[in-house]
């Protein structure tokens, strides 16, 4: 039983990090109907910004998060404006292929010696690790930080989307961008903002991931990116609470599979889930298929 509870906690840790990535996937999809495959690599850049600000500059943790957020936001807005915006009215497949191209570019460009470099780098611990033993169940302060920061981010996101003018504009654009424009919404600006917001969360996720799994390289975004994408599909792509729910399920299933079957299958389970969802409920758990009302 203790073992099981311990695994649940480990799964939560992973799920929360996936959630931060999945939110960006789902928001961008919700607003421009694009699977932004470069999103996992933005997450990687966040992790490297964390690495440099902690190791080289020894900044306090808050400043580390802020710089990852700023760096990733600027990067994503640039990607959106340079790579995706010119294709806004092109067939969807063009943007999708471009997204894969951007992803590969980020992975290989940053692995140049002059950028981040091609090796695995150990991610410094920004604070000494403390673990609490509660009836045989271990909880670390890293996990506490992850739970806390992720929860704050999700609440903040929820506030932005449902309580601010910008959030209302995002929901309007996501529903019908032509009509949103007729309300005076600058649609391009809202799209850039959404990319930036998703990337900001991925940046936070990158730093947290580095703290929790302290080894980074420029290809580290690939797998978590795919899993977060699966999480977003599982929860219902375009749906914000769905992305969090999907990510938590992904985190649990991956951890449980490693704990009770074999860690060899941990990546496999993600894709089994993806295939099953696409076969049986392509709209995901909380997603609804949109019916056109004439």
């Amino acid at each position: 039983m203790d073992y099981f509870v311990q695994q649940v906690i480990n799964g939560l840790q992973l799920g929360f990090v996936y959630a931060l990535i999945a939110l960006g996937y789902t928001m961008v999809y919700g607003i421009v109907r694009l699977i932004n495959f470069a999103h996992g690599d933005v997450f990687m850049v966040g992790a490297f910004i964390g690495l440099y600000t902690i190791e080289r500059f020894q900044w306090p943790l808050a400043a580390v998060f802020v710089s990852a957020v700023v760096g990733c936001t600027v990067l994503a807005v640039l990607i959106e404006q340079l790579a995706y915006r010119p294709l806004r009215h092109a067939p969807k497949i063009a943007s999708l292929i471009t997204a894969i191209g951007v992803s590969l570019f980020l992975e290989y460009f940053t692995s140049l010696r002059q950028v981040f470099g091609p090796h695995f780098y150990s991610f410094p611990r920004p604070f000494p690790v403390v673990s609490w033993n509660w009836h045989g169940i271990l909880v670390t302060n890293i996990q506490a930080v992850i739970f806390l920061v992720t929860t704050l981010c999700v609440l903040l996101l929820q506030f932005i989307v449902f309580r601010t003018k910008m959030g209302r504009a995002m929901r309007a654009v996501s529903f019908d961008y032509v009509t949103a424009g007729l309300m005076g919404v600058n649609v391009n600006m809202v799209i850039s903002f959404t990319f930036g917001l998703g990337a900001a969360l991925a940046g936070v996720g990158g730093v947290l991931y580095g703290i929790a799994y302290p080894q980074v390289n420029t290809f580290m975004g690939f797998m978590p990116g795919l899993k977060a994408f699966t999480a977003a599909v599982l929860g219902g792509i375009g749906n914000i609470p769905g992305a969090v729910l999907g990510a938590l399920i992904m985190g649990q299933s991956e951890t449980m599979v490693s704990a009770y079957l074999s860690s060899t299958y941990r990546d496999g389970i993600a894709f089994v889930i993806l295939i099953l969802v696409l076969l049986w409920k392509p709209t995901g758990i909380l997603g609804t298929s949109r019916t056109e009302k004439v």
Partner: protein
Amino acid sequence: MLLCIENINVYYGNIQALHDVSLTVAKGEIVSLIGANGAGKSTILKAVSGILTPRSGRILLADKDLVGVSPHRIVRMGVSLVPEGRGIFANMTVRDNLEMGAFTRNSREEIEKSVAEVFSLFPQLRERASQSAGTLSGGEQQMLAIGRAMVAKPDVVLLDEPSMGLSPLLVRDIFLLIREINRAGTTILLVEQNAFMALSVAHRAYVLETGAIALTGIASELRQNAKVRAAYLGDVAE
């Protein structure tokens, strides 16, 4: 003239939808555009609101050219479109839809005042303020769409087929309302299939045929015009 369209040519891809269309709307007027399906009525409204860009010609709003200006800027310049099919944000509440209408405005106090005005004009909307707009009936959605445009405090409202899909009784209500909004000082350019209603409410009207203006005049006179009666008002030729 408040709105002055000069010789616009609009294309969908390679297909020309409007041929040298010119029309004017004076401040305080209701001007109707009537014509058959596909004559290009909605296209004119889409060109004015910036959704479509004419290949040539000018669209002047109080001497400022709107051609090439993006839709969100045109709204800020004082032109609101109530699109065909209403364009309600069904995923949002009635209240949020109205807030979207006020997107270009900043004073909280004045927005509240405008929203209150819409609610007093349409008491049903007040009752359903926190309800999802997708659950409203067709008539209520149309009222919401008009109310949402009014919250922007536009100088000109472009109405695209406000009677579409509504029962005859509701159609009457909508037209009474259009008149009321106009009396309160808003200029209206109205596109309608229902030519009888469109000509009853308007000061002037234009008849559109296959993308070009075929006829224009005072609305009450057009109602007596034999050609108009035969083609649009369902008169049987005697």
